[in-house]
């Protein structure tokens, strides 16, 4: 086939793709007969009623000398691992505020960290395009540092996010600036599967976040600079199961909803969304209407759901930490406007395993633990 003929085919195929995308968008819009908030209101539901002193900062974890970029809790115990611009991981006992380990990283440009399910190892990754594993029980070297026990190499871009597969200390999923996610075997250091990249249904820009479904650990969702989230089956690397459109900017954060059938997203466009995993429906948008529309809305950096899913915590670049009522789509509390708030961007947040505490990490170099300190009514 000649070059001009190929060009014609390319133009025709591109037009067909655009037309199909438009048809899909319109058809999906027709299927959105309601959203979660309208439905909940129609059922007479009212917003969660917090008093301003209900969620209390009960700990401030100080020790990092640079911005905190990432944090992760251990399951069951009270420990947290945090990663910072200071080039260190710190492992904290959140209950006593003590630092149990401080790991000076071979590559200071760390962006993400994660605790292994058994609590014996931590993983981290960043601009070195690799994911390093540290066994917390190893003997320290002569400089007092925990040596790296394994380096997972293969990504061709920065590692933005990493998460161990729930219940499996040997499996980890990373997301990367190279537009792919990878499932790793930690014991051998080998890539088991690569999601995206050369396959057409992969992300078309940097992947920034990943969340594994705790109800079905074969499924995970990724968020990207291409403004979409994609659902993957870890057993099928050749194509994304579904692509979720709606955001107008980078999808910085993705997190599965506790029922395992929905997931939340947080974006540079300043909104959070709730998507239905199976159908792809955009079920709810969480957005504050700004009075001054000329101002850039603060971006959403991180999200987490409370254990029942009734609350959606969202961290923003301006230091706000909104507590959204997931069902009524209203902000019921702002942890960024309290006396004990962080003094900078909230970069990461996460719930303890029993859902009794929220940890927030900030560019103010601190982490904070928030818990319910008001009068609780048990029904």
């Amino acid at each position: 086939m000649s070059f001009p003929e190929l060009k014609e085919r390319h133009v025709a195929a591109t037009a067909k793709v655009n037309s199909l995308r438009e048809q899909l968008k319109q058809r999906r819009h027709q299927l959105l007969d309601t959203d979660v908030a309208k439905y909940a209101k129609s059922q007479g539901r009212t917003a969660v009623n917090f008093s301003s002193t209900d969620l209390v900062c009960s700990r401030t974890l100080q020790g990092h000398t640079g911005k905190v970029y990432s944090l992760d809790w251990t399951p069951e115990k009270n420990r947290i691992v945090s990663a910072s611009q200071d080039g260190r991981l710190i492992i904290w006992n959140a209950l006593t505020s003590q630092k149990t380990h401080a790991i000076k990283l071979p590559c200071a440009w760390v962006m993400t960290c994660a605790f292994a399910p058994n609590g014996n190892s931590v993983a981290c990754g960043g601009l070195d395009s690799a994911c390093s594993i540290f066994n917390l029980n190893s003997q320290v070297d002569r400089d007092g540092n925990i040596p790296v026990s394994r380096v997972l190499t293969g990504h061709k871009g920065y590692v933005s996010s990493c998460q161990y597969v729930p219940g499996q200390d040997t499996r980890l999923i990373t997301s990367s600036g190279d537009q792919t996610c990878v499932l790793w075997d930690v014991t051998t250091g080998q890539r088991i599967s690569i999601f995206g990249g050369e396959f057409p249904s992969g992300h078309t820009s940097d992947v920034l976040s990943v969340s594994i479904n705790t109800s079905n650990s074969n499924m995970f969702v990724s968020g990207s600079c291409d403004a979409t989230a994609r659902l993957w089956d870890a057993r099928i690397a050749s194509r994304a199961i579904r692509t979720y459109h709606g955001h107008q900017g980078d999808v910085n954060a993705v997190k599965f909803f506790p029922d395992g059938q929905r997931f939340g997203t947080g974006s540079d466009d300043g909104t959070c969304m709730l998507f239905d995993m199976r159908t792809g429906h955009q079920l709810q948008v969480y957005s504050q209407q700004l009075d001054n529309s000329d101002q850039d809305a603060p971006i959403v950096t991180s999200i987490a759901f409370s254990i029942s899913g009734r609350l959606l915590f969202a961290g923003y670049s301006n230091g706000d930490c909104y507590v959204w009522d997931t069902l009524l789509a209203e902000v019921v509390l702002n942890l960024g406007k309290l006396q004990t708030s962080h003094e900078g961007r909230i970069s990461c947040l996460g719930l303890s395993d029993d859902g009794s505490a929220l940890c927030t990490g900030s560019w103010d170099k601190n982490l904070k633990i928030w818990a319910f300190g008001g009068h609780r009514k048990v029904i």
Partner: protein
Amino acid sequence: MTTNGEEAEALRRPPSLPRPPRTGDFLGKHRLSAAISRLNQEIQYLEEELNELEKMAPSSAACMEVCLSTEGKSDALLPETPGPENPAWHRWFQRVRSSHSRKWWTHKGSSDIS
């Protein structure tokens, strides 16, 4: 786009003087072909998704499921929650002696942390 089709097309074209292939042309055609393959694959996926939407339930069904899923689940961070209340939830406000300092955390109910 099949090989047979390509050959048939080549036979229909009038014979022309052969010219040496330029590397730029070759790379350009190769890239274009790859791009067309990817686009065709995407067309297939998009058509599959459109078909799926024909039989798909509207969003109200999922909205109802979301509302139901949050009910009956004990949640330590809610002011009103079904039980049982786990005593471990209170650990964040109990006195914990740290061996490194003499700090004691305040009781539940206070919003000031010393």
